[in-house]
C-alpha cells in the first residue's frame, strides 16, 4: 500500500463477499475512486490514525467517505465510529454505516455518535445493488465534503 495514496472510500467490512459485491457495484456505476477495504475495527482505526501496521501513513489524507459495518472483529462499528467522531482530525469525515441490522437501538446509538448516514444492507442482490449504487453516487458526487 502506498502510504501517501489518497483514499477516497474506506470500506470497513469483514465479509469478503459483501466487500466484493460492494466494490463490483461501485465500479459498475463507473465510480473509479480508490477504495481501501479493512476487515476489522482495530485495523480500521490503525489505518485512519496511521499507527500499528499503518504507521507512517499520511493521516491528513482522510477518506472522502467511510463505509462502516457494525459487526466487526476486535472493535465493533460503533466503537470505531466513536473514535472517528471524537478526533479533531477525523471528526468531519462523512461516515455511513452500512449494516444488516435495522435494530432501532443501533440506529439511535449511531446517530448519537454523530453518524452521517445509516443504511441497511438488503438481502436481495437487486436491492443491494440499487442501494449501494445510490450510496456511492451520492456520497462521492452529490455530497459536498468540507474543504481542508
Amino acid at each position, binding site marked *: 500500500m502506498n502510504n501517501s495514496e489518497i483514499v477516497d472510500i474506506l470500506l470497513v467490512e469483514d*465479509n469478503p*463477499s*459483501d466487500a466484493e*459485491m460492494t466494490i*463490483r457495484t461501485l465500479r459498475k456505476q463507473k465510480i473509479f475512486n480508490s477504495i481501501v477495504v479493512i476487515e476489522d475495527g482495530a485495523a480500521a482505526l490503525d489505518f485512519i490514525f496511521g499507527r500499528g501496521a499503518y504507521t507512517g501513513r499520511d493521516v491528513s489524507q482522510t477518506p472522502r467517505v467511510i463505509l462502516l459495518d*457494525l*459487526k466487526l472483529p476486535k472493535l465493533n462499528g460503533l466503537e470505531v465510529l466513536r473514535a472517528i467522531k471524537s478526533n479533531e482530525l477525523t471528526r468531519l469525515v462523512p461516515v455511513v454505516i452500512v*449494516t*444488516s*441490522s435495522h*435494530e432501532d437501538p443501533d440506529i439511535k446509538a449511531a446517530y448519537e455518535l454523530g453518524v452521517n448516514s445509516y443504511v441497511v*444492507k*438488503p*438481502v*436481495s*442482490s*437487486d436491492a*443491494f*445493488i440499487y442501494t449501494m449504487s445510490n450510496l456511492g453516487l451520492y456520497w462521492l458526487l452529490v455530497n459536498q465534503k468540507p474543504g481542508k
Partner: protein
Amino acid sequence: MNILVVDDNEQNLYQLQVLLGGNGYQVVTAVNGADALTKARQNPPDLVISDILMPVMDGFALCREWKDDKQLSPIPFIFYTATYTDGRDRDFALSLGAERFLVKPEEPETFIKTIKEVIRQVQSSPAVLHKPPQEEENSYLMQYNQVLIHKLETKMQQLEQTNRDLEQELAERKQAEAMLQREQDLYKDLVNTLPAGVYRLRIRPGGEWNANSWRSQFESYCSVDMVSDRFCQITGISRKEFEAHPVTVFDRVHPDDSPGFIRKNMEAAASMVFFSWEGHLVVAEGVIIWVHFESIPRRLENGEVIWTGIVYDITARKRAEEALRESKETLNSIFRSAPVGICIMKNRVYQSANTFWCEGFGYQEKNLIGKTTRMLYESDEEYDRVGQELYSNLQSGNIASTEARLRGGDGIFHNVVLTAALLRAGDPSSGTVVSIHDVTARKKAEAEVRQLNAELEKRVIERTAQLEVANRELEAFSYSVSHDLRAPLRAVDGYTHILLEDYGSRLDDEGKRLCSVISESARNMGKLIDDLLAFSRIGRAAMQSSIIDMATMANSIFFELTTPEDRKRIDFHVSPLPSIVGDSTLIRQVWRNLLGNAVKFSFKKERAMVEINAEQHGDEVVYSVRDNGAGFDMQYVDKLFGVFQRLHSIKEFEGTGVGLAVVQRIIHRHGGRVWAESEPDKGATFYFTMKK
C-alpha cells in the same frame, strides 16, 4: 227487836234484811201492805219500814190502816221510798201519822241512826192514839187522791219523757245502723277489690302438731272466719269448698314445694310471729302459678289463734325476675366467656377481668381486683402516656384506642392494643370497659412479613436484573445470529446475480432459470430470518400502553397494504370499533397481519370483501376480520396459528406462515384470545379479544 220490812222488791227486802240483821235486829219481810198487816197482826213488830208503791195495798193505805189499828198504831212507821219523793208526798205521808219519811237510798249509817232514834222516841213517849174524825177521813181520801193523781201525772210525764228518750235512742240507733251498714259495705267492697286475697282462719287449741300430722290436725282444728272472693279467684278454690275444708290449700300446693310449705307453717306456728311463704300453686288442670302467702297470728284469751292473711299472685313478678336473672347471667357469661380479653376499670383500678384476659395474661382475677393497672406497666411514662391517650379521648364520650406494652403474669411483656369505652356514655364516673388484644404475635408476624417482603423485593429485583440480562443476551444473540445468517444469503443472491450478469450469455434458458431459483431461495430465507426475529422480539420487548383507536388504525393499515386497484376491487367495511388500551406498535402488527392475509387470500376473487366487526361481551371486546377469500379446511384449524405453519402451498399463496403466530403471540401478551372459522372457498373469519 224485830222490824217489819215491807217492799214488793225482793232486792230491797234482801238489802234491808242484811243491813238490819247485821245491826242485830230481827227482820220480818212482807211484799205488800196486805201481807204486812196480816203478818203484823199475828206478830207485831217493834218497827215497820215500808215502801209506798206496792201492789194490792200501797204504803199510804197500809199506814192509814196501821195508824187506825189499835194494836199497831203505837208501833213506829217509817216510810222508805224511792218513787214518792215530792214534797207533797212527804207531807201527806207524815199527815197519815208516819214517824219518818225517808228517801231511798239512805246511807246505811244514817238509816240505822234514824231507826234507833225513832225507837228511842217511841219508847220515851208512847204514841197517842190518833183516831181520825170522819171529815179527816174525807180529807184523807181527798189528799190521798191528790197525791195519787199527782203521782200519776208525774209518772205520766216521766213516761212521756222516757218515751221521747226512747224514740230519740231509736233514731240514733237507726243512724248508727245505717253507718254500720255503710261501713260494712265499704269493708266488703275493699276486701273484694283488693288485688290480694284476704282470709281469716281460726285454730282451736289442742291437737298434736308435727310434720306428719299437720294435714289432719289442720282439717280438725281449723275453721274459716272469713275469705274474700279474690282469694278464691287466685287459688281456684271455691268459697264453699274453702269454708268447709280450708286444708284444700295444702292439696293445691305443688308437690315440689309442699315440704317447704308445711315446714314454714310449723315454724310460723312455733314462733307465733308471722307466716310467709312463696311457692307454686296448682290452681287448675295444668295451670301452675306462683303465689305469696303472708299472715299474722293473734292468740285469744280462750287459747284460739286467729291467723289473718293475704295471698297474691306473683307469677308475673317471678317471670320478670327470672327473665332478669337470665339476662344478667347471659350478660355475665358473655363477659366471662368472650373470646377477647375484657376488663372493667374504675379510675384505673381493676373491678373485674374476664377469663380470656386472665388466661391470656397469666393472672388470676382475684389478684387483680382492687389493684391499680400501674402494676402492669414498665414505667411511669408508659402508664401516663396510655392514660393520656385513652382517657382524654374518652372525655368526649368516644371509644379510644392505643398500643401499649403490658407485663404478663410470667413477667414477660406483651405488645397489646387497648380499646376503651365508658360503661355509660357521657358518664366518666361509671367506669370503663377495656378490651385487650395481644398483638405480640401479630407484630411478630408483621415484622416477618415485612422482612419477607423486603427479601422478596430483593429477590424480585435480582430476578428482574437476571431476566434483563438474559433478555439483553438473547437480544444480542438473535441480532448477531440474524446478522450472520443474512450475510451468506446476500452472498448467494449477489453472486448468482453476478453470474447472470457476467456469464448470462453463456447460459441457456434453463441455466438462467436455475439461477433465479437460487436467488429466490436466498430471498425467502432472508424473509424468514426477518419474520423470526420479529416474532422473537414480540415476546421480549416491553409493552407500552396507550388508548388505541382501532377503527382508525385498521383503516390506515388497509390503506398501506393496498393499491388503488386493490381498493377498487375490495369491498372494505369497518363497523364502529370500541377503543381499547394496548401497545400500539404491536397491535398495528396484528392488523397488518390479519388484513394482509385477508387481502392476500382474496386475491383470486373478482369481487372481494373484507369486513371488520366488534362485539362487547362482559369485560372484553371481540374483534373479527372476515373475508370471502380462499378460506381453509376447519380440520386443520389447530395448525393455523403455529409457527411456519401453512395450509396452502407456496404456489397458491406466498408467505412464511409466521404471520398468524405473531398475531397470536401479540394478542396473548395483551391477555386476549384468537381463533378462526372458515369454509374452503367461502372465506374466513378471524377473531381476537382485547380487554376493555
